[in-house]
């Protein structure tokens, strides 16, 4: 496949399925239509693709699942802007464009043999879900796995069916929390009420042999890092997936700089040790 395709020119992908998963978020299942592109398509959890909605433009998304070998990929799209609104108007069978994958994902090889703590806030569950699937696929290669996932309210918890399944697994620990819940709401699967740092405080974690992967809104990073450091996590083992306005994905348009680093090539997954001296990074 010529480098120009998938890098500079979007490759067509058919929308195979659209499934609403919360009030403003839907799961899109896409399949690359070009055989060669489908065969070669692979990525590391944490990397992103640029999705084109014709006549609206392009936006970056981190896939929900690790790559299969069929050119299929799943995205969670929250309706927040121009491109995502257009995607929400699309129907099954419509064609969108895909460029990528771009950026640096999670250091999965380096994380092998270690305990893994995943901390997701809101839509931040998406890249971490991709990482979690990888960890569970290679379950023996990793130590203990804990996923803590926080959302605004019970109805904002994404991937509920899957969360129920994960909750039953014995080879990982799942903890959920919501900011607030009305008394009468049936909170299923069962979750705590409070913020992620509160959840973290209540659990014994041995930081020595552990990596923490965090993804969520900027406010989450600002309150969780101190907690992780307090538990003894070294700054280079705190992995953060940042959000910026990546336009080209190629390190050219200069929109996504974080200090002197570029989110689209040096990130979106960064170590806290690389970010801590950068003003405005979090």
């Amino acid at each position, binding site marked *: 496949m010529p480098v120009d395709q998938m*890098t500079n020119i979007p490759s067509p992908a058919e929308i195979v399925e659209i499934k609403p998963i919360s009030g403003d978020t839907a799961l899109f299942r896409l399949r690359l239509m070009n055989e060669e592109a489908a065969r070669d398509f692979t990525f590391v959890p944490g990397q992103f693709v640029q999705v084109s909605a014709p*006549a609206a*433009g392009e936006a970056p998304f981190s896939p929900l699942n690790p790559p299969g070998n069929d050119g299929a990929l799943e995205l969670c799209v929250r309706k927040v802007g121009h491109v995502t609104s257009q995607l929400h108007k699309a129907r099954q069978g419509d*064609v969108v464009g895909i460029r990528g994958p771009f950026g640096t994902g999670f250091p999965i090889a380096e994380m092998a043999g270690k305990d893994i703590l995943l901390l997701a806030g809101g839509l931040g569950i998406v890249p971490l879900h991709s990482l979690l699937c990888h960890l569970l696929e290679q379950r023996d290669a990793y130590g203990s796995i804990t996923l803590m996932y926080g959302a605004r309210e019970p109805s904002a918890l994404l991937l509920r069916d899957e969360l129920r399944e994960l909750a039953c697994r014995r080879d990982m620990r799942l903890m959920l929390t919501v900011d607030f819940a009305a008394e009468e709401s049936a909170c299923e699967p069962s979750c705590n009420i409070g913020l992620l740092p509160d959840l973290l405080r209540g659990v014994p974690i041995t930081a020595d042999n552990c990596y923490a992967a965090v993804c969520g809104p900027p406010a989450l990073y600002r309150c969780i890092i101190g907690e992780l450091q307090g538990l003894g996590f070294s700054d280079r083992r705190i992995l953060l997936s940042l959000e910026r306005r990546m*336009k080209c994905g190629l390190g*050219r*348009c200069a929109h996504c700089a974080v200090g*002197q680093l570029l989110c689209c090539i040096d990130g979106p997954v960064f170590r806290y040790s690389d970010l801590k001296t950068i*003003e*405005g990074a979090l």
Partner: protein
Amino acid sequence: MAKDFLANESFQSFLEELTQFGAIHGPTLTEDGVPAFTTIASSSDLRLDYRRTLIPPKKYLFPPRTPLLNFAPGCGYSRPVVATGEIILFGLHPCDLAAISYLDRVFTQDRPDPLYRARRNALTLIGLSCEADEFCFCGEMGTDVPVNFDIYLEKVEGGFCLRQGSPRGKTISSGLSSLSEGPETAAPLQTRMAKVADRIRKAAERQETFPKSPLWDDFADRCLSCGACSLCCPTCYCLDIREYGDLDGRTAQRIQEWDNCLFKSHGEIAGGYNFRKTRQERFRYRFIHKYLGFGPLRGVVSCVGCGRCREVCPVKIDLQELFQQED
């Protein structure tokens, strides 16, 4: 002896001879009296004594607004055909040559931009020596020694000394009958490193961002966020990408246009959260990009000392002042 002298009286025929290699563009005055690079019909259009054009030559490499992709149902996205007739860009000062050299690094190295490369390959760069005024400091930045040219003209008594800087420059000049044998040797060019330049380099080397300088507040208070400094900067290349549907409701065009890091929208993400809400944050972003460098160009100072930003700023902001503070 090499034919490397262009006498003033041969200048018109030199330009005429050059037209066989491409359309000639050079410094002229627009109807409004603004210095600009435009097409040249005759040598009388040229302003050989110009100081700087308002819009730098980057417009030839990535136009202010240019199609990036076309979309049509069934065909998907495809690249538009870029008209790249050969252009002889005449009269580039050393600072603008240095700027093009920097842009070449941005757009043709790690992940080359095919559109940039097509336009760049169609450009022949002819440099021209200049004299500094109160706004520029190319000598201080070490960019007064010309780089990246095909042909360079150094103004001397009675004409110009010509130098070739590339195989293309050699091919072109070898066929020119307007050149003659000139004086023995032209005076060698030397970099005039000044104190400020030295400070800029040292600051860049130690990744200095002057976090405590009171100047940041001062700049942010005065700045109008008009973006003129970055629009006129020969090395500013922030690009936005937009897509517009056509009236037929089926096809669409994706365009690329100049963006500006001083605009509030630059640091915004989906949902409206802004990583650079304040002018001060946007100024720091600009400073880091200009003097310390992003990503693969970390450590590369991209200011070439052309003086445009100092000249056009309506509120007289000069980032250079940061380097002039007492340590």
